[in-house]
């Protein structure tokens, strides 16, 4: 028996997709600034990358506020319960068509593996990337701040995080295809409703 539950609120969905677009755009422009590709032209890539970065920073500020005020942050509380079975499911069970060992609900919409990886994304990857980006953006003011460091360190950190985010994105997008149908998870991220086994 399947039932539909409302998992993702309007703000959450807006935030998710805006963030997704911004991150993909930041990757394209960022790798152009880095010299790995040529798409928009260097001047445009720099300009748009800066703008998108600042926008993502603003969006993230709203998201943090939202998580705190709505209590949604609780979904990201790390839990190791059943973790081994969940990993096993993705590695083997899924090939056999077994049921997902985690039961989604409005109280706990992320399985422990998701909660852990999103937590890592939100408290480590994104903050480090946004802060190193901000530092990079204000590079010309370092002298007046008394910072004598060179650009290298910040640039390497920013590049390393960019690669980490790229890997995250790729795996994340692939895992969206593991729902009832290939697109069912994607659909629920648009509608907010998800069909789960009762």
């Amino acid at each position, binding site marked *: 028996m399947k039932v539909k539950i409302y998992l993702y609120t309007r703000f959450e969905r807006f935030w998710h997709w805006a963030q997704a677009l911004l991150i993909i755009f930041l990757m394209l422009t960022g790798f152009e600034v880095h010299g790995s590709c040529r798409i928009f032209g260097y001047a445009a890539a720099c300009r748009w990358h800066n703008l998108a970065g600042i926008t993502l920073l603003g969006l993230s500020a709203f998201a943090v506020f939202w998580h705190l005020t709505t209590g949604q942050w609780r979904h990201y509380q790390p839990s190791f319960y059943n973790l081994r079975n969940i990993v096993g499911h993705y590695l083997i069970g899924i090939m*056999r068509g077994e049921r997902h060992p985690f039961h989604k609900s409005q109280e706990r919409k992320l399985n422990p593996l998701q909660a852990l990886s999103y937590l890592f994304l939100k408290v480590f990857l994104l903050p480090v990337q946004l802060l190193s980006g901000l530092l990079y953006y204000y590079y010309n003011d370092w002298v007046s701040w008394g910072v004598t460091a060179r650009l290298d360190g910040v*640039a390497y950190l920013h590049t390393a995080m960019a690669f980490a985010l790229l890997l995250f994105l790729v795996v994340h997008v692939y895992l969206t295809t593991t729902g009832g149908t290939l697109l069912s998870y994607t659909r629920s991220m648009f509608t907010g409703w998800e069909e789960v086994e009762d």
Partner: protein
Amino acid sequence: MSPQSNWCRCTSCHAGYGWKDKKFDFTSQENIDCLVCHDSTGSYRKFPTACGHPAYEDKKFGGKDVKAVDLRRVARNIGPSSRTTCGRCHFYGGGGDGVKHGDLDSSLLKASKALDVHMDIKGLNYSCTICHVTKAHQISGRIYSRPAPNKHQLALPQDDGERLACESCHGLAPHKKEPLLNGHTDKVACQSCHIPFYARGGVFTKMWWDWSTAGKFTDDGQEIVKKDEYGNIVYHSMKGSMGWAREVEPEYYWYNGAMTYFREGDKIPGPHESGRSVALKINALKGDYADPRARIFPFKIMRGKQPYDPENRTLVIPYLFGKKGTGPYWGDYDWGKAAAVGMKEAGLPFSGKIDFIETEMYWPITHMVAPKDKALVCEACHSRNGRLASLRGFYLPGRDRWRGLDGSGWLALGITLMGIVLHAGLRFIGSRRRGGRA
């Protein structure tokens, strides 16, 4: 080459009448020839070998007629300095139009906007002195404090006037459309972006001068003069081989406005650590990335080969002009003899041995500012093999990366994608077996 022992020739520019020997007082007012700068007829010109004197009667030089200067007409037309008067020395440095500087040649007299936005005759039409503001005859020179070479003798009583820079008029943040550019002005000189090529006016500038090949004559003893298709001399028995270019891309170096000069008598540094000899820098630029006053500046580098004394490791100062038989190179064509006389005159030791060493001379490029739409695009520098490719020691976005990091990043991406393909394949096979259920 140095003016020592060649006074007559060099003083055609290094102003003054009658500089015959080294006892002449360079700093005396009376000895400054006023007319070079103040003649507005355009006819006052010094005769090349007349020790700073103009041609008082018609003469021949280098096969060309040189008309006597009508001094009375000149005297009646004393006027403000102009591009013509300043250019008389500065355009013809090194013995010909545009030879030395590369950014100062006679094409500036009738500059178009494409050649120089400031001296454009249909536009701003600046004379040299609009930028080189003169106060009581002290023409302002380079930015920052550029110590003059040894007791640098100038056309003017002293050369440490007010310093001039593009920023004096434009400020440090002249870009409104692209604010990112203003973030560059602390590390990249305006000239680096705004003079994409020098010698753009059609006049060739000398890039290479190899003295070691001089002194060859035809079998019957005639001088050899070879010219390229544009009429530039590429070989001359008197001077050796030469290379010319126009529309040249500058080379870029950190520069804080100061140079050190290799002087006659200085020891030539030995071969490099790698065991290779590197070219001797006649003038070396000061400043690097860590120096807050240094910026990336464009240069013309004049390369060549000059005679030196391999034993004492000094450059030799050959005696060039003079009566045949007394040892002048341009007469007897014997480097050993010419060096012996020249070095004696300069009071320097000479071993009697002569060899040739590669030399480099750095000329800052600062004129021929191109219209704004011709300024360098970002990719000229921010790309793997851009104009700054060989300028190391700092991180330049788009050019630099940590290969290990990028390599691991792309490798990890590749492995992840392969894992996904494998996973998806197994899922697909599994679902087929189960009859199409996910």
